[in-house]
Structures are given as structure tokens and as C-alpha cells.
């Protein structure tokens, strides 16, 4: 090989050593492309022995596509002397002896001084590099894909807040193309004007923040189509090697829907809380037993705390356990409630209890509790339920009961007054006569004292007769003061309805006395023509009598039955029957007489008045001993006459 210039040309042996040492294939060809030399690396690379190639056209090492163009390149170069490949190199595909192909980087040089010219080719196997490149490209494509398909809004901003990068999600959110965003001022292009100042401040804060938690900010973005979305951002300042801020990288999440949900849930929670407060109804979830894992946290609604007179905790779902509930219960009711709780956790089901609560402020409240227990996962019981403050209802019911009693009392007195008015004249006549006779006798006796009356008892007795007669007259006068000029007013009425109303009045009385009221109402009753108030007065009177009479029976065995019945052509009946002692046989004949009573505090007028009312309705009030031995009163009213009323 010839040398060029002043440098010492390498010896032939040195050159051959160089050729043998190089890992690239080195091929020497003449101007017609015939191989003149082929080094050892070439033999390894192509699988040929050098002898097999010397004198062959170099195209044997090329793929079919390169083969034709090679001759063409050579011819062109020989003709124009303009090199295309020499000193530049190119990637081409080479072909081994076994026909397999592989990529090589081909460098070509011309050996100057030779005529005709010769060329030297170096072929470097780039299979590994190709593969590495392909892997990198795949890697990059995948990263890009991730960026694109990420469901977060990815954004890179310059230090002056110009958009450097935005992913597909970001473009979609803003309804803009990437190209329309890149390089633009982020605030101008995406943030509602009203929020510019705040966003700028937030970004500054993040830029200067040291702790990770300070990297969060949120603001709305304004899309090209006018839609606003609320985005929660994680913003990361990016700094150069010198620590100077070069920009920001941000990942944003569309929290519009989540925020709306949160607000809706918060509103629901507040409304529920308010509803509970209005209804004075709390609810709870508590757990009992169960050994698996940590015990579940109990829940008490805020109203639950308020009913018990406790301050609701700030954490909305926090609850206390049943011991805290028991501690609030009135000491007298505590044992019973504890027993109910034992039943609740002993067996699944629903149980009710009523008890009093003594609040820390000393207020007494009446509450109703409903426990519903179900077996919990992991053993034990899960108990859910409600706590209802019935203090107001209790008070109202008590007030109503007192008012009702007062009214009944007044109405009873008024009826007595009416009756008294009727009999006043009849009674006053004999009373006047008695008084007159007595005073006449007093005077006569004084004029001629009797020898037999040495103690003077006769004038005294006569004076007493007069005084007592006057007293009787005074009683009647007082009764008459209660007179109400009320006439019987008949109107169409459903007897069952009258009975039900009276039962409502009587319910509290019955409960107090542990009397069970049983209504057996016929469903085929025709409409009756009655004075509702008067008939109800009879029923009320009879029911009260029965309830009082049942005081002699043990609790739990006191029953009053009230029946309605239609006996066509005979009567409409209301029957009130108790299982008390009944009316003593010697009194049965007189029970409807005025002033006949078995009760210490009775007036003895109730039944008399009731019978009077029944008769005013062309009806009857009858007594019979019930089959079981109690009292049975039957009010019979005439059947309606008109067929159309049926």
C-alpha cells in the first residue's frame, strides 16, 4: 500500500496487522468492483474465506436491491469524478455467504496514485446499534403514548408561564389543538380573567414552597367552547443546574364532578341533620361483641347527641358506645333499658323501649328508642336504630287529656244542671212546704211549750228541719246555675265513627288503668240519626264506668269490649261490656235511678242522664250481666226508616 505526503508509510507487515486487528471488514476492490483483498474480520462477518472472494465482484456481498445500484454508482463516479459516498459513508444491507442479510455502515475511500483507481471499503456491522436504536424509539413512543393517553392534564410552563407542553387530555379539556396552545400565555389562553391574580399568587407560592404538601392549587380553566372545569393541580417548579427557576411541570385532575358530588353530599348531610333536628329523631349504629379484627366504630347522628343533652362532636360520623347511652338514662329506667339491650344483642330482631333521659343540664326528656339488631360480619351484633324525643308529644297529650277531662267534667255537670232544672220545681215545692211547716211548728211550740219536751229539743229539731230543707233548695239552685239551654240536635252519623272517637278520648284513661279496649265494630251499619255529642256522652260515661269498675281486677286481665251491631227492623246497638264485678244484684233494679251510685265519688246521675238521652232518641239503655259475669250495657237506637238510608 502506498503512502502519501511526508508521513512515514507503514510497512506491509504493519498494515496487514492493522487489517487483521480491526473488527470491521476491510475490502479492497479495483475500479471494476472486483475484490482484490478481504481481511479476517470480513471472513468472520460474511462467512466466506478470503480465497473464495478474491477476484469476485464485490456485489456478491450485497443484497439484490443494492447490487444493481452499486454498478451504477461506480460507473457514475468513474465518469464524473464526483464522489457521493466517499468520505461520507452510508448504511447499507450486506449479504452473508449463507444468504442472511445484515445492516452495515459502509465507508469507502479511494487509493490515490493507483491507476486505474482502487477503492477500499470498510464495513461495520451495525446490527446491535440498529436494535438499540429501535428499542429507544419504541421506548420513546411508549412514553409519548403514556403522555397522550394519561387521564391527567399534563402541562409544562416556562418561568413566564408560557405553555411548553400540553398533553392530549389537556387539549381535550380546553377544546383546543396543541398547536394553538404551545407558546401561549397560560393564564390568557386557559384561565378565567377573574382568577388570574389568585392563580398567579398560588403559582408563586408553590415556586417558593419547600414542603411537598404546598404544591397543590386549584382553579377553573375556561375551554374554547365556554365550558368551565375545575382542575386540581400538582405543580412542580423546575430549576436549572444553577438553581434558577426555568419553568413548571404540572399535572392536573378534573375535579368538577367530584367537587359537585362532595357539595351535594355535604348538602344532603346538612339537610338530614336539620330534618333530624326538626323531627327530634336521632339515629345510631353500634356494635356488640365480635372478636375478629378491630371493633367497628359506632355512629351517632348529631341529633342523637342533642337529645341526650350532649355536645355533638366535630367529626360527623363519630359515635359512642352503649355505655354512654345508658349513662344518660334516668336512673329509674336504666335497669330496664339495660335488659332490653341484653335482649337486643342476644338475639337478632327489633325491640322498642321508652325511657326518660336526664340531661347534664338537668332537663327531663321522654324518648322512644328502636333497636334493630342483625348478626355482624366477624361475629357479634350490629345494632342500628332511632332515638325519638317525644317530650313535646307527651306534654301535648297530657294537656289534651287534662283538657278532655275538664270538658267531660263540665259537660257532665251541665247535664246534671239540666236535670236539676227539670226537677227543681218539683223538689222545691215539698222543700218549701217542709220549711214552712217547720218554722210554723217552731213558733207554735214556742208559744205553748210541751211539758214532755223539758230539754227544749223540739224547737231545736224543728229549726234543723227548716235549715236542712233550705240547704237542699240551695243545692238545687247551684245545680241550676249550670243549666245550658241545649236542645237535642239530630244529624246523620256513623255509629262506628262515634265509637272510634270516644275510644280515642278514653285511650289514655284505659292505659293509665291498664285496661285493654277491644272494638268489635260491625261493617254493615246503616247511618243513624242522632245527636252526636249526646250519644258520645253516653258512650263515654259507660266506658268510664267500666274502666273504674275494672280496678278490682288484677292488672293485665282488664278488658272492655265495645261492639256495634245492626239488627234489621229491631235496633242499632252499641254494647259495652267489661269483665269486672258487674252490678250487685240488689242494685240492678235501681241503677238508672238518679243518685243511685256504687262509687264513692259518683254523682249517681250518669246512668240516669244516659237513659234520659237514650229515650230522647226514641231509644233504650239496657243493663244485663255479661256471660262472663261483668257488666253489659246496651244502647239501642231506632233503625233508620227510609230504605234509601240503608
Amino acid at each position: 500500500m502506498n503512502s502519501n505526503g511526508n508521513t512515514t508509510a507503514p510497512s506491509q507487515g504493519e498494515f496487514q496487522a492493522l487489517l487483521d486487528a480491526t473488527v470491521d471488514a476491510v475490502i479492497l476492490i479495483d475500479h471494476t468492483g472486483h475484490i482484490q483483498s478481504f481481511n479476517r474480520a470480513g471472513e468472520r462477518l460474511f462467512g466466506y474465506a478470503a480465497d473464495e472472494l478474491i477476484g469476485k465482484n464485490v456485489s456478491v456481498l450485497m443484497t439484490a436491491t443494492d447490487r444493481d445500484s452499486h454498478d451504477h454508482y461506480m460507473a457514475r463516479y468513474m465518469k464524473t469524478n464526483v464522489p457521493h459516498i466517499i468520505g461520507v459513508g452510508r448504511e447499507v444491507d450486506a449479504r452473508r455467504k449463507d444468504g442472511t442479510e445484515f445492516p452495515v455502515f459502509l465507508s469507502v475511500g479511494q487509493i490515490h496514485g493507483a491507476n486505474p483507481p482502487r477503492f477500499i471499503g470498510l464495513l461495520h456491522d451495525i446490527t446491535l446499534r440498529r436494535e438499540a436504536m429501535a428499542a429507544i424509539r419504541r421506548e420513546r413512543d411508549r412514553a409519548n403514548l403514556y403522555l397522550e393517553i394519561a387521564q391527567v392534564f399534563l402541562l409544562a410552563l416556562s418561568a413566564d408561564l408560557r405553555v411548553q407542553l400540553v398533553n392530549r387530555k389537556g387539549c381535550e379539556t380546553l377544546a383546543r389543538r396543541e398547536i394553538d396552545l404551545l407558546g401561549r400565555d397560560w393564564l390568557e389562553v386557559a384561565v378565567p380573567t377573574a382568577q388570574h391574580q389568585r392563580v398567579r399568587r398560588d403559582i408563586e407560592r408553590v415556586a417558593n414552597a419547600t414542603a411537598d404538601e404546598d404544591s397543590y392549587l386549584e382553579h377553573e380553566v375556561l375551554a374554547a367552547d365556554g365550558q368551565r372545569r375545575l382542575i386540581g393541580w400538582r405543580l412542580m417548579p423546575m430549576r436549572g443546574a444553577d438553581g434558577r427557576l426555568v419553568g413548571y411541570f404540572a399535572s392536573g385532575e378534573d375535579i368538577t364532578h367530584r367537587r359537585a358530588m362532595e357539595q351535594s353530599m355535604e348538602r344532603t348531610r346538612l339537610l338530614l341533620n336539620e330534618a333530624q333536628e326538626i323531627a327530634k329523631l336521632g339515629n345510631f349504629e353500634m356494635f356488640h361483641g365480635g372478636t375478629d379484627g378491630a371493633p367497628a366504630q359506632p355512629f351517632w347522628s348529631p341529633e342523637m347527641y342533642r337529645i341526650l343533652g350532649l355536645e355533638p362532636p366535630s367529626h360527623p360520623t363519630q359515635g359512642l358506645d352503649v355505655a354512654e347511652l345508658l349513662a344518660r338514662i334516668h336512673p329509674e329506667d336504666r335497669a330496664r333499658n339495660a335488659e332490653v339491650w341484653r335482649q337486643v344483642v342476644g338475639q337478632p330482631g327489633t325491640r322498642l323501649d321508652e325511657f326518660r333521659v336526664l340531661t347534664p343540664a338537668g332537663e327531663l326528656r321522654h324518648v322512644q328508642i328502636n333497636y334493630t339488631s342483625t348478626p355482624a360480619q366477624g361475629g357479634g351484633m350490629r345494632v342500628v336504630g332511632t332515638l325519638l324525643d317525644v317530650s313535646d308529644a307527651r306534654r301535648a297529650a297530657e294537656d289534651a287529656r287534662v283538657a278532655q277531662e275538664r270538658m267531660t267534667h263540665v259537660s257532665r255537670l251541665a247535664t246534671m244542671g239540666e236535670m236539676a232544672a227539670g226537677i227543681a220545681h218539683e223538689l222545691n215545692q215539698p222543700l218549701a212546704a217542709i220549711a214552712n211547716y217547720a218554722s210554723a211548728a217552731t213558733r207554735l211550740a214556742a208559744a205553748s211549750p210541751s211539758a214532755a219536751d223539758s230539754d227544749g229539743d223540739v224547737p231545736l229539731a224543728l229549726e234543723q228541719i227548716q235549715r236542712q230543707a233550705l240547704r237542699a233548695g240551695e243545692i238545687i239552685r247551684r245545680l241550676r246555675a249550670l243549666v245550658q239551654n241545649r236542645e237535642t240536635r239530630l244529624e246523620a252519623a256513623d255509629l262506628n265513627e262515634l265509637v272510634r272517637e270516644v275510644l280515642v278520648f278514653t285511650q289514655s284513661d284505659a292505659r293509665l288503668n291498664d285496661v285493654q279496649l277491644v272494638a268489635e265494630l260491625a261493617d254493615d251499619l246503616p247511618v243513624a240519626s242522632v245527636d252526636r255529642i249526646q250519644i258520645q256522652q253516653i258512650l263515654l260515661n259507660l266506658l268510664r264506668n267500666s274502666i273504674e269498675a275494672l280496678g278490682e281486677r288484677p292488672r293485665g286481665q282488664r278488658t272492655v269490649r265495645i261492639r256495634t251491631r245492626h239488627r234489621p227492623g229491631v235496633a242499632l246497638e252499641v254494647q259495652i261490656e267489661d269483665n269486672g264485678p258487674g252490678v250487685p244484684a240488689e242494685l240492678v233494679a235501681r241503677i238508672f235511678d238518679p243518685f243511685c251510685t256504687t262509687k264513692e265519688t259518683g254523682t249517681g246521675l250518669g246512668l240516669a242522664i244516659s237513659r234520659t238521652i237514650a229515650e230522647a232518641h226514641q231509644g233504650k239503655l239496657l243493663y244485663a250481666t255479661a256471660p262472663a259475669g261483668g257488666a253489659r250495657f246496651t244502647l239501642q237506637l231506632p233503625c233508620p226508616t227510609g230504605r234509601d238510608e240503608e
Partner: protein
Amino acid sequence: MNRNASVFIVDDDDAVRSSLRLLLKSVGLPAMAYASAGDFLAAWHPSQAGCLVLDVRMPGMSGIELQHELNRRGAIIPVIFISGHADIPMAVEAIQHGAFDFLQKPFRDQELIDRVQRALAADGNNRAELAKRDAIRERFDSLTPREREVLTLVTQGKANKVMAGDLGVSQRTVEIHRARVMEKMGAASLAQLVRMVLDLEGAHVD
């Protein structure tokens, strides 16, 4: 009190009627009792002094109706109502129609006796007044027309000379008429004569 005065009792209740009579008798008051308004009207005469104890409510003619009948007849007998069934409107009506008093049965004996005695006293006074007025009227009726003219002028306070001029007679004639008037009317003075004339006129007003 007039010794002939009686208490009249009208009540349909036998016991009330008889006990009232006994009560009044025990204090020395004579009483006559009737079972109905009709019986009473048949037996009673307006000139009989006394008072009436009357039950309000009776079968047939009621006490109130009897009172109206008595008023219609110009009776002056005081009426004490008694009632076993009194109410205020009824009592007011009775009083407005001139009832002397109203009592509710049964009553304290003294209440009735006091009222009866006051009623009898009132009746006595009324009757005395009426008797006096009747006497004056009788004397007045005995005057001649000329004497009545003189009486009228005298009570008007006119002097004899003026009267003579008015009547066209001598002063002497006037003096004679005047003396006759004083004598016939039984008046001791001019003042007494004037009071008699006023009583008479009051009667006319009644």
C-alpha cells in the same frame, strides 16, 4: 194595720198552701188559701184589705196571668210572688208589672213574714190615702157651682175684691161663699184647703 186585712195565698201545691197558712197563722196573720187563680178571683173583692202571696207556675191561669188580670181590674192589692223555678227574666217581668216582691222557694220564714208585713202595711197606707181622697171628693161634690168657682179662685190666691170683680157680685157675697166653702170642705185654714185641692188633682192625675 187594718185589723180586717188578710193574707191571700194562691198555690196549686196543697202542702205549700197549707204550710204557708200555718206559718202565717203562727205569727198571728190571718190567711186565706186558694188552689187556683180562678178560686181566688171568685172569692175576692177589691175592697178587701190584705196582700197576695202568689205562686208563679200553676196549671190553668198562671201567677203572672193573674197579676195581669188584677191590674186590668185596677186592684191595688200588693202581690208577693213565690216560685220554685224562678229565673231572673221572670222576676224582672213580675216586678215591672207592679209586683211587690219576689221570693224563691224554699225560703226562710222570716223573709216571707217580713215581706208580708211590709205588704200589709203598704196596703193599709194605700187604703187610708184612698179613703181620705174619697172623703174630700165627697165634700167637693157637695159644693154648688158658684162655690166651686170661688174655691178655684181662692186656691189661686185671689183677694175677695178681685174675685167680686171677676164674678160680677159684691164683695160681701164673695165673703159668704168663701165661708160656706171652708165649712163644707172642713178646712181650718186656707193652706189646708189648698192641700185638699192638690190631693184631688193628684187623684185625677192617677
